[in-house]
């Protein structure tokens, strides 16, 4: 697959279809991958594709708006491109998406497949210009974990236990905002966390500040997050951010039958409604 990827990249650069290709290259430690930006034909043999290519490269697209860019995208990455297109952040004609069929990527912190891959339903890619198929038809090695199992475990807890659990998690948040900076769908020029007129919540890394930040971040991704898992991977404090995002995803799927990143034409979740939306909790 790597060969095919390199040839395609060379071809794209040669006939000027794109100015730049965002892909993966081996990192100096020889095992992990890291993002790379290829604009010269000769460098295309730096490109690699294997299970260490965990990064969601569509996060960098917002920096190259208006320029012809090629990007390598797994199934989850291309879903975030769909959401970005749905929210008019990118122009489809500026993008050349090289879809890569993926059999699960490794999150270098823990051994084995990343959590998101274990419950990844399908690795077919919703949107691409060129698809690199997985040659060896190996069986999908991913056990079909129930993706909402950790959330159900937390929901089963008593209210006070949940409060203590999340207070313990949010206590270790150091407010480095890596979860925001690595998320492809976090593209606000001035985030609510940085606003001073008014300042929405405390900048202090104490309990109230961290709680407000994490709730706000999750709410702003409601109906948009496509579970690429980058926020949880980047978080140095090891906070289970996906278990917050997926809780909202689960509620939205159950109550509103809305699937994020499904297709480009549908309206964003909070920008539409159904007359029949549930309102049993409203007095």
């Amino acid at each position, binding site marked *: 697959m790597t060969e095919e990827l390199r040839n395609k990249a060379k071809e794209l650069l040669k006939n000027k279809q794109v100015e730049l290709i965002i892909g993966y290259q081996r990192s100096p430690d020889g095992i992990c991958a890291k993002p790379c930006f290829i604009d010269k034909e000769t460098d295309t043999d730096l490109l690699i594709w294997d299970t260490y290519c965990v990064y969601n490269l569509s996060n960098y697209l917002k920096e190259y708006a208006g320029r012809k860019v090629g990007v390598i995208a797994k199934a989850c990455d291309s879903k975030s491109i769909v959401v970005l297109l749905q929210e008019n952040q990118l122009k489809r004609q500026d993008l050349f998406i090289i879809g890569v069929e993926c059999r699960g990527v490794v999150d270098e912190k823990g051994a084995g497949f990343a959590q998101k891959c274990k419950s990844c339903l399908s690795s077919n890619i919703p949107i691409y210009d060129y698809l690199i198929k997985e040659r060896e038809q190996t069986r999908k090695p991913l056990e079909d974990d129930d993706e909402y199992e950790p959330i159900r475990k937390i929901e089963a807890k008593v209210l006070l236990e949940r409060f203590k659990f999340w207070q313990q998690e949010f206590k270790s948040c150091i407010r480095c905002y890596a979860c*925001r900076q690595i998320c492809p769908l976090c593209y606000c020029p001035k985030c609510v966390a940085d606003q001073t007129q008014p300042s929405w919540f405390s900048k202090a890394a104490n309990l109230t500040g961290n709680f407000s930040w994490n709730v706000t971040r999750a709410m702003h991704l409601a109906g948009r997050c496509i579970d690429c898992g980058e926020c949880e991977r980047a978080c*140095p404090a090891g906070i289970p951010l996906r278990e917050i995002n997926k809780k909202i995803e689960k509620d939205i799927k159950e109550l509103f039958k809305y699937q994020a990143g499904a297709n480009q034409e549908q309206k964003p979740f909070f920008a539409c409604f159904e007359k029949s939306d549930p309102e049993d909790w409203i007095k």
Partner: protein
Amino acid sequence: MTQKIIAKEELYKQLNSLAKDFEIIGPKDLFNKGFFYERLDSAQELYLGEGFTTEPVKKFFLSPSEWLFNCQYNNGKNSLEELSLPDKKRIIIGVRPCEARGLILLDQVFGSQGYKDEFYLNNRRRTIIIGLACAKPDAACFCTSLAGSPVESRGMDVIIFAKGDEEFILEIVTDKGKEIFGALGQVLNETEKESHALEKEKNKELVIPKIKVPESLCSIFEDAYWQEVSRACLDCGICTFLCPTCHCFDLVDEQRKKLRCYDGCAFADFTVEASGVNPRPTKKERYRQRVFHKFEYFKKNFGENLCVGCGRCIRHCPVKIDIREVVTNIPVTENK
């Protein structure tokens, strides 16, 4: 430098007995999250293995967020109220040599050249540091390239070396350390002394990556190299918040309480002015500032590099930017 052997149980017993009038802080294994310094109820929770903590010990001295003073507003008049500094004595055990050297650098920042930061200095005065020498440096460590070593005891009161699973070799460095650990353990006999010294030399070689920090970076300030290197950077705060020597902070007024909290040059609006002008608008300037401040500017003010080679920014960077790569591949341009 008296050297002694002490059993692990004995060390824990001593720590627990000190827990009455000292706060015991040490690394704790938070299962899949990594190792973090925590306030411990008993020494048994301690993790003194090879793993490195995610957050440096800096957070107990330059606090990630602390209140500097309050302002009361009653019947139209503002009155300022100072907050009392915590005076509970503390013992922090498991501090790596690189972090202890980081504290020495921070001492110069917060307590020299006419600037006295009482909040930091008070924390320093009330803390006894028990260092833990590194038995197994990992691939990200490069302390030996910055005049450091996995076995040195600078900045510590006591240093312990793991000997097998059940014993430690203990070296008293300062009289503060002598006070609490002076009476413990048996003095090493001659043979043990040699083997310990040999062991120390062997450990020094374990730190494999050797990088050469260039003398002056000024000549390549305008180089396109910085554009290339900083392309993958996300502008997040991980490398600055987890660095034992980064000390930039933010002063914010919240509900009439003055808050000081961590800040970093990586953030996009660190230098945005009220008029909206930003002297460091893109990642290139910001990442270049981080490298120049560590290996050029700080040296001009305090004579030492502001980096101790602990490898945290390499271990935890979400996009694998390696500052050793950045520093060693700097294009040396003769003509400029």
